[in-house]
């Protein structure tokens, strides 16, 4: 049915149907974010030998995040007098919107996906870069020294780590010969790219953690030096939008890692093929997500001066070398 829809004349009706489907995805993502925050707090609690939330919603704290969101909704909204009001209001929207737009290109299974773009990978990279502007706008508009420092740091860090991130996936593009995420998954039917491109995977993982502004790369919002970074002055639901953007990006980035390196919806071994693709995708996705939580409770924050040098002096040369190594090996294999 969807196949027919995709081939029909684009118009208002199609817009309406796509809109409803996208709303469904939006609620799935909001559900994920709600329980991702809970999972993060619980897992970190267990890793630090404490309980984590266990009061609201039973022993597992199942309603904790719901209560938090409702509380945020009821908070008074303050905009500092010295702030640049229009920019202050628009910044959370600029930060959030790209995080949701990138979801359009990600194929979850062979059936459950939205736009099948020819330039899917490039689309993801290009759109996700826009969030930096939201953070910088928020930091600048607040007219607060902490916020401005946080915003500038966020911009500097994200543009620095974007380069290794973008370059590490070129190895995959070389092997697949396509930017379409469906083609990339299809090419991993037998061997996943984590096996063929281990170096690229490590660079991608490090750079993606930095892009997500998570520990050990959470300098833009380092609590104990910048109070909260670019969103110091934000309160209530405007602040929640920044947080939401962050967690939606975790969803998007974990999905992208699964699609690019872990074979998307393909099973681990072909005899396990009777298990549906969606289950495989969810399993791999959760492994990546757990890895992010694990990082958070394991690594200390990286020093500000080491941060930039690490991106430009270590990750970038390795990523460049990886591209040409892949190309040369491919050329040699073609000879035989």
């Amino acid at each position, binding site marked *: 049915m969807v196949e027919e829809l995709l081939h029909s004349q684009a118009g208002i009706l199609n817009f309406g149907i796509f809109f409803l489907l996208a709303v469904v995805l939006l609620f799935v993502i909001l559900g994920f974010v709600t329980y991702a925050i809970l999972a993060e707090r619980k897992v970190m609690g267990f890793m630090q030998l404490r309980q984590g939330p266990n009061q609201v919603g039973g022993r597992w704290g199942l309603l904790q995040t719901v209560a938090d969101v409702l509380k945020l909704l009821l908070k008074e909204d303050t905009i500092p007098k010295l702030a640049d009001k229009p920019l202050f209001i628009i910044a959370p929207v600029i930060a959030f919107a790209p995080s949701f737009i990138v979801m359009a290109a990600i194929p979850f299974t062979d059936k459950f996906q939205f736009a099948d773009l020819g330039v899917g990978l490039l689309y993801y990279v290009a759109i996700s870069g826009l969030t930096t502007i939201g953070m910088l706008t928020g930091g600048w508009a607040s007219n607060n020294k902490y916020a401005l420092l946080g915003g500038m740091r966020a911009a500097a860090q994200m543009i620095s780590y974007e380069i290794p991130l973008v370059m590490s996936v070129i190895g995959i593009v070389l092997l697949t*010969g*396509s930017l379409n995420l469906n083609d990339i998954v299809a090419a991993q039917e037998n061997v996943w790219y984590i096996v063929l491109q281990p170096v690229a995977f490590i660079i991608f993982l490090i750079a993606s953690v930095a892009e997500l502004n998570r520990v050990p790369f959470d300098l833009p919002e380092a609590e104990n030096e910048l109070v909260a970074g670019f969103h110091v002055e934000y309160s209530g639901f405007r602040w929640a939008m920044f947080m939401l953007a962050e967690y939606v990006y975790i969803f998007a980035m974990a999905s992208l890692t699964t699609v690019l390196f872990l074979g998307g919806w393909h099973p681990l071994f072909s005899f396990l093929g009777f298990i549906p693709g969606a289950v495989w995708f969810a399993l791999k996705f959760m492994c990546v997500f757990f890895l992010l939580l694990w990082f958070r409770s394991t690594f200390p924050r990286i020093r500000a001066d080491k941060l930039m*040098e690490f991106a430009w002096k270590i990750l970038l040369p390795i990523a460049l070398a990886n591209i040409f190594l892949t190309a040369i090996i491919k050329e040699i294999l073609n000879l035989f």
Partner: protein
Amino acid sequence: MEMLNLYQNNYLIVFVFLCLGILLPVVALFIGKLLRPYKPIKEKYTTYESGLDPIGDSRVQFNVRYYIFALMFVIFDVETVFLYPWAVAYEKLGIFALIEMMIFVFMLVIGLIYAWKKKVLKWI
């Protein structure tokens, strides 16, 4: 015509996502506006600076390093713009394109090494 429809529909989906991405914050903030209290006090609208009164405007001149990193970013981002189509079409282009791209990247790497030696990459 068939392909054109497919193409248009795919980008229509992207447009739908754009609309939703903007709509969600707007709707959420509107609902929040109906629910949240509004009790303005002068102190609430001061800039936060750990309890002190902020001195001067916070939008001061910024370290030039940020600008230099932005320049470096532009250079290498343009490089990736060339690398992506090259990687896609590599199968058809073959070894000639590989050597060409190596020369191109080599020149940019010289730039990187120059910046490295000039201590541009060092963050103080």
